[in-house]
């Protein structure tokens, strides 16, 4: 979906070219899928399946049928009922979400360590009150603090108990997938309720190129069976496991995501899906994985356009983030550049809030600042209406401003519109004198203050006790089944 201001990074001809090449890839080369049940289901549905090699090829008819089955409208629900997300966004805006999977947590004191369960609580207390943040993910707790076989299950328990907003789940093991679904169902009084109002959606993810390991195939399979929405991902690293060109990498990522959507819609027509290609590149000197390379940013927009404009399928990618390790100038150049570009793209979701260090560290201070930047980006996406009222035509044509008693400060038109300009909460908008009087605070310092205010306040949401008890029951059962000690 787009607002008024938008980038177009593909010509119509390039868009058609990409679509036909992507379909050709799935029809002629196909995918590799490590999942017996799913393979035999796809076989029955008419795909060309080699059970021995675990290879699947699709036909044009199947692809068309799958694309036609993708719902044009759907809603991702929130546990609190206050932050339900209608797709496409009725205002033409995008939604935002937090970063998923980062192993490290940077506390407000600057200490960085593997994420603990207490910090997960802290995280949701913040996300609950960030007005420009629409849904959340699971901070990645570590096997040092939580049983290593069940970190996702333990973290989801926290999310279900504390997050007022929709939860996007990243599983860590095949065996855990069904437990994660069961636990989400327990939080809403059963699977039927979860199907009616999905408060969670899942991550599945390809291994470039076009390979799906058992866990991800299991996500596709289980979610299709349980009718739980999926936002299928691909995480290619340009030059390392996909072509070094950003275009080539975008292409492989889209094809992987597309293959997952086709599978989901063949298995469960009408299942809500959001295409989520998440591109990286490798620095050819340090070999470090980068998120913020400029060509990759453009390639992200290519991906968004391919799905949104090419297939009318909602699309989602990184919409903030940095390769910098700290809150420095590089960080803010990279993330604002990306946020703005994505805001002006066709993207329906901008992801990655709160992350530093190429998605390996999350920081509450960064999250609070990202919330602020998203506020700006939303307005950029919205653009401005141009008409007599917004021009103040009446006053101008009548020459009202020639009258000495007239002032724009006191005009009716000003009174009607003066609240419209955006005033980011934590930005300085005052003279140096007053800024000094107020303690000469930087943006990061104000974010820390906001953090303390949030922590001191009551949490705005908690899962009702009876539902929480049901969730705990599932956690116990999952622990017994999964944790090998």
């Amino acid at each position, binding site marked *: 979906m787009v607002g008024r201001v938008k980038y177009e990074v593909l010509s119509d001809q390039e868009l058609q070219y990409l679509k036909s090449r992507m379909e050709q890839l799935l029809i002629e080369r196909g995918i590799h899928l490590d999942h017996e049940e799913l393979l035999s289901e796809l076989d029955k549905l008419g795909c060309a399946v080699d059970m021995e090699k675990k290879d699947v090829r699709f036909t044009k008819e199947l692809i068309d049928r799958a694309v036609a089955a993708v719902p044009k409208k759907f809603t991702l629900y929130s546990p609190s009922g206050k932050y339900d997300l209608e797709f496409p966004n009725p205002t033409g805006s995008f939604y935002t979400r937090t970063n998923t999977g980062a*192993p*490290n947590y940077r506390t407000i004191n600057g200490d960085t360590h*593997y*994420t603990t369960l207490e910090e997960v609580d802290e995280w949701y207390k913040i996300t609950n009150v960030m007005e420009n943040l629409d849904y959340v993910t699971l901070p*990645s*707790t*570590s*096997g*040092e603090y939580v049983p*290593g*076989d069940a*970190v996702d299950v333990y973290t989801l328990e926290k999310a279900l108990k504390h997050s007022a907003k929709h939860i996007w789940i990243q599983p*860590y*093991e095949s065996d855990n997938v069904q437990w994660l679904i069961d636990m989400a169902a327990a939080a809403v009084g059963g699977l039927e309720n979860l199907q009616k109002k999905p408060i969670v959606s899942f991550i599945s993810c390809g*291994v470039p190129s076009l390979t799906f*390991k058992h866990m991800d195939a299991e996500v596709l399979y289980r979610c299709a069976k349980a009718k739980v929405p999926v936002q299928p991902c691909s995480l290619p*690293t340009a030059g*390392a*496991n996909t072509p070094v060109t950003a275009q080539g990498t975008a292409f492989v990522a889209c094809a992987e995501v597309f293959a997952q959507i086709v599978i989901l819609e063949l298995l469960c027509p009408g299942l809500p899906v959001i295409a989520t290609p998440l591109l990286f590149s*490798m620095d*050819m*000197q*340090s*070999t*470090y*994985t980068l998120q913020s390379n400029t060509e990759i940013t453009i390639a992200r927009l290519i991906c968004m356009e391919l799905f949104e404009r090419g297939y009318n399928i909602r699309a989602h990618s990184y919409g903030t983030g940095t390769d910098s390790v700290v809150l420095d100038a590089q960080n803010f150049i990279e993330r604002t550049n990306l946020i703005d570009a994505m805001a002006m793209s066709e993207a329906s979701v901008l992801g990655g809030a709160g992350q530093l260090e190429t998605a*390996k560290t999350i920081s509450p201070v960064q999250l609070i600042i990202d919330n602020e930047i998203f506020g700006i980006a939303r307005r950029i996406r919205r653009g401005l209406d141009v008409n007599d009222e917004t021009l103040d035509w009446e006053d101008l044509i009548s020459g009202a401003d020639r009258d000495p008693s007239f002032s724009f400060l006191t005009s009716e038109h000003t009174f009607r519109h003066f609240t419209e300009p955006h005033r980011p909460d934590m930005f300085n908008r005052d003279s140096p004198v007053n800024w000094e009087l107020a303690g000469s605070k930087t943006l990061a310092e104000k974010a820390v203050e906001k953090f303390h205010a949030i922590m001191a306040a009551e949490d705005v949401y908690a899962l009702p006790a009876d539902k929480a008890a049901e969730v705990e029951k599932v956690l116990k059962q999952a622990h017994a089944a999964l944790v090998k000690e």
Partner: protein
Amino acid sequence: MSILNEITELVIKGDIMGTKAKVAEAVEQKVEATDILNNGLMPGINEIGERFAKGQIFVPNVLMSAKAMNTGVEVIQPLLAAGGDTTIGTAVIATVKGDLHDIGKNLVGLMMKSANLKVIDLGANVPAEKFVEAIKEYNPDIVGLSALLTTTMNEQGHVIEVLKQAGVRDQVKVMIGGAPVTQAWADKIGADAFTADAAAAARWAKEYVTSIR
């Protein structure tokens, strides 16, 4: 330019076919195989190593030069004494059980090969027992363990424990790496070395095997 200098230049350029042809030509001209290796091929790859360390060239340059060097070595291999092993030491590397991330591990392998180590790559998602078997089979100097998840890092510690139980821990140096891995973690689980990237891993390995030869 002597033919050996020409070989050196071709390795530096990463010209695979050119290196192969030039080495064959040198063999025809009855240049000693060890001479081709030590004064033609090796200076090329060493120069590449230095240029890379100075940040003058990129990883693909290094890898292409290593390929060129290896095709050259293949030509003279049968002529070299003692089976013609030209490597300076052996490393067994793998990504640990439960973890499928192999890009970093592959790079470590490629860079170690470029530093003239023999590399046995066991792949990804490799259980601890396989390392014991590989140590017995290949008698390596180094075992390299890669882990990219905070959940699978624990497995690095487990592998070290299993090596101890099998009585092979002291035969090798254990190197660990991967995005979430730190020196503190290496200390905690008793690994011998941690490096943050593949180039440093290859440097450490090369220094170590050279020091014990």
